């Protein structure tokens, strides 16, 4: 299925009967591209990411991840391909310490603990949160939690990233660190779909900028 990481094919979806948020909506996202999704509050950005991941199931239309229909994949399988960072980082915090938050899945996924340990240390360094390693995650600021959940999503080396408003509540220094990290993984061939309200961030980092409004693509620009 060509170079498409994610292919959304003529989906229709709504939360209420008779009120469709997406009607006959199609979109294709490339594997090695940074796509930025812009749109007003309530325009359907987060719903779209949930449809891509298979959390929301549209009654009409198909979603394909790396050529496989999402109906054939479990959430766990989707999670091993796509790293997702929620809008609310509290949903994704499980560990008793920052380090535990990065490592806790190793036992369940049968990962090599030495490799995962090294990867965790490298991520802590990349995101400049080494000093927080023994801190309980609920003591962190919202921005620090957001960075931690991004690091957690990266621990399993996903092929693609979906970030829901990653820059909100981040200070300029952390936005710079986040941007630098996205640039480095992009160079290695990892694509991303980033939802943001930050137009400067979108213009600087997006290979493709899509604006949606009321469930329709209003603008789709490639750099």
């Amino acid at each position: 299925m060509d170079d498409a990481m994610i292919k959304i094919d003529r989906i229709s979806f709504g939360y209420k009967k008779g009120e469709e948020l997406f009607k006959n909506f199609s979109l294709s996202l490339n594997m090695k591209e940074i796509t930025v999704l812009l749109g007003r509050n309530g325009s359907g950005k987060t719903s779209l990411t949930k449809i891509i991941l298979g959390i929301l199931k549209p009654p009409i239309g198909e979603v394909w991840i790396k050529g496989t229909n999402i109906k054939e994949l479990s959430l766990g399988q989707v999670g091993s391909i796509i790293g997702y960072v929620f809008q609310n980082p509290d949903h994704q915090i499980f560990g008793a310490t920052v380090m535990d938050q990065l490592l806790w899945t190793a036992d369940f996924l049968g990962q090599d603990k030495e490799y995962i340990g090294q990867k965790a240390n490298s991520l802590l360094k990349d995101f400049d949160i080494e000093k927080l390693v023994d801190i309980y995650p609920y003591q962190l600021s919202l921005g620090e939690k957001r960075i931690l959940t991004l690091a957690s999503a990266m621990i399993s080396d996903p092929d693609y990233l979906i970030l829901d408003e990653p820059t909100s509540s981040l200070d300029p220094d952390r936005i710079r660190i986040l941007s630098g990290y996205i640039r480095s993984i992009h160079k290695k061939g990892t694509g991303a779909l980033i939802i943001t309200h930050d137009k400067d961030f979108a213009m600087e980092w997006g290979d493709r900028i899509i604006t949606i409004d009321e469930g329709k693509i209003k603008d789709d620009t490639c750099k």
Partner: protein
Amino acid sequence: MIHVNSIDPRTKLFFVAMVSSIAIITNDIMVLIGLFVLSIVALFLLGGFSISLFYRFRKLLFVILAIALVQSFFTSQGSSILQIGEKVILTDFGILRAVQFALRITIVIISSLILITSSSRNLIQGLLQFKIPYEIVFMLSIAAKFLPILRDEMVNKVIAMQLRGIDFNRIGLRKKIALYRYLLFPVTINSLLKSKDMSVAMEMRGFRAMDGRTSYRSLKMKNVDYIIIFFSLIIGLSLVVFKIVKGGI
């Protein structure tokens, strides 16, 4: 159909307490069936009944079957309906006990649904006018509001776990139990943090700043309320007297 707001929430509370109490103390299958019908009719008249209710209770069928088998297997009462060799599998007594249990649970749940037909603010006011301290009433209402929040949080956490690559269908029971530790720990901490934040927000809005809280709203009983309470009381007392006289209802 009775208008939802025309019945005082205190009347509903009294009715629910009466029906649920009788359902728990009685063993008579006819009384239980009567209470079941009464609850359904009351819920229908108050506009809280929907046919999907029965669909939701379908899981109770498995519970009835399980209780019927356990009661038949471990008690010697009743006559055998199904047996394999010498071992009795199902008796009429077992089936009766299972049906009694199912009716009891259903009556308590359906009658409790009557309370949902009142707004939470009116229920709080009703309890306050029953002279229950505001702090306790407020705690009850907050606990009820927290339940859907907790449920949503659990759902989100399970999704987030799966999105870290964990496939619930492919891991063993031991690992599944270990996963619940990672699930329950943050949910508990989050609830504690939320309640702490909420208590601060409430203090900021002057909760308990002064003694003798007054209410803008005031509930007033109507004739229909007194009639419902009177008949509920008569039925309840009759059954209790009947139980004392006959030694079992």
